């Protein structure tokens, strides 16, 4: 399960970043090729960046590679280190659930309910914000999974 999600997420991210590069290159090219340059590329680029940024952040969270100050962790005994890491995971999960899942879902729901549209593409803004709860769910899932593995290996020792 975890492996499948990781793999799928990797492909989605590579795809999104590729589209992002092509979009901005097209913005430059269309100015020189077309008589009337495309008018949506800059809005699309912004939305793609939100997706790449937040989904990428979820992917990095799964790999536990977000920047942190781990002086205390390094100086701790294995026992205290284990407790601290559990605490850290809980804090991360708490943020993912409250802000990204709860806050993000309410944002998405209200955008759809009030039918807010993007300015240039005219697409529903709720679809753009959907990445918030999505990334939140992924972060929470990855951290719960990591925590489960930590507890398991701690029992063994």
């Amino acid at each position, binding site marked *: 399960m975890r492996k499948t999600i990781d793999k799928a997420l990797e492909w989605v*991210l590579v795809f999104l970043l590729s589209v992002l590069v092509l979009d901005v*290159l097209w913005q430059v090219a269309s100015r020189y090729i077309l008589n009337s340059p495309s008018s949506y590329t800059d809005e699309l680029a912004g939305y793609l960046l939100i997706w790449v940024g937040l989904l990428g*952040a979820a992917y990095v969270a799964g790999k536990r590679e977000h920047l942190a100050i781990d002086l205390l962790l390094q100086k701790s005994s294995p026992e205290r280190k284990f407790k601290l890491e559990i605490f850290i995971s809980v804090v991360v999960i708490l*943020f993912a659930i409250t802000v990204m899942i709860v*806050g993000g879902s309410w944002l998405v729901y209200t955008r759809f309910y009030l039918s807010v549209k993007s300015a240039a593409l005219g697409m529903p803004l709720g679809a753009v914000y959907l990445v918030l709860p999505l990334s939140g769910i992924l972060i929470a899932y990855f951290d719960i999974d990591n925590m489960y593995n930590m507890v398991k290996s701690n029992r063994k020792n």
Partner: protein
Amino acid sequence: MEFFEIFVLVFSFIILLVIGVPIAFSIGISGILTMLVSIDMIPALTTFSQRMATGLDSFALLAIPFFILAGNIMNSGGIAIRLIDFARILVGGIPGGVAMVNVLANMLFGAISGSAAASASAIGSIMQPEMKKEGYPDNFSAAVNITSATTGLSIPPSNILIVYSLASGGVSITALFLAGYLPGILTGLGIIITAITMLIYKRSGTKAAMRALGIVTLIAVGIVAAYKGVSFSRANFSAGLNRVLLYLVVAAFAVWAVIKTIRNKEKAKVGTKKFLDAIPSLLMLVIVIGGIVAGFFTATEASAIAVLYALVLSFIYRQIKIKDLPDIFLRSVKTTGVVMLLVATCLGLSWIMAYENIPQNVSEGLLSVTSNPFMILLIINMILLFVGVFMDMTPAVLIFTPIFLPIVTAMGVDPIHFGIIMVLNLSVGLCTPPVGSVLFIGCSVAGLSIDKVIKPLLPMFIAMVIVLLLVTYIPDISLWLPKSLGF
């Protein structure tokens, strides 16, 4: 009234940080806690998530994944090694030459890739064994690599200057890029001088080191004289004449370099070949900066052009295959994810800080201590140096720009100048123990623990601080270039 909010914010942030919660989540949690003090639960959570998403919807931020991607492609595509070969012909034969090659290669690669971390890993992994072959101690090589990797942050293009432009509310990116050249080069120079002095001291004792420093002092006096000359010409000659003078200096330097190369025929032959090899790689700088200045594309669009160019070049060099691309893209996404979550949560935090008028309160507090501009700049530098020891660059720029910028602009400091001060200052932090991404990367490339590099790092750290102070109190070092080009 806002005292309680400030307390909640600072207290929770420090606790989470010390425990080891990732910086982005520490910022996020302390931000949302502060928000909950004065805003209802659901609006607060929704507002924070809205700030996170919309904050990333910025055309300026786009350049960041693009320059990271371009850097990664260059790293795998054989572009870095050509830059090292080129740097080697520039300074080969001088005592401490390989150390200088390390610094110059970092300046060139960092300049083009815009990322200190990419630079430290790319150049470090190639140069570390080279320096070992020449008999340099490992920790010395690592210290040179770590400190010089940060010079690329001020030499354009530079992701962190883009972040600053965003945090400052839209200072021109092009002007910032131009302003970064001299301070970045000056830092590189400072590191080279220190490294060579250290080497001479070790090999030939105090006297020789003093003599070397004497020469450096003479050169410094020369530079100050030149600076005085430049200010004189700016005050008394027209902009056109000044531009002619600039071109003359550049041309004289080029002629000097050519003559010096030609004098040694055999070297010249190899040199010319290496130079020709490096031209396509160096062309990237010309295309990126030239394209912006000539109006083919904006600074943001230039970053996508850089990706395209690096890709084409790597395919021509036949060092990247199509099937390598997903991996390179994924590596770039990872770095992007780290930076973007920091940007996102910081924008949530800065929203609540603005809502509670925290920047105004902090600046009032700071101004009540002293109103002397010299002292305020010194205090700000000290705060940033301290912050930089523990915190990475992007969050630091995002958090402190909105707090400090209004104070210094009220004193008449140019926002462009202040951006360079901030970036230089936090660059020092990137390589100061105990925490710093470039420090970590440099040590892991060299296979050393952090405490081993502290001793050789210290003198170079002092050199960087001296350059920082020069840049802080002589605005022309940063502003001369953008001003002479009409910004």
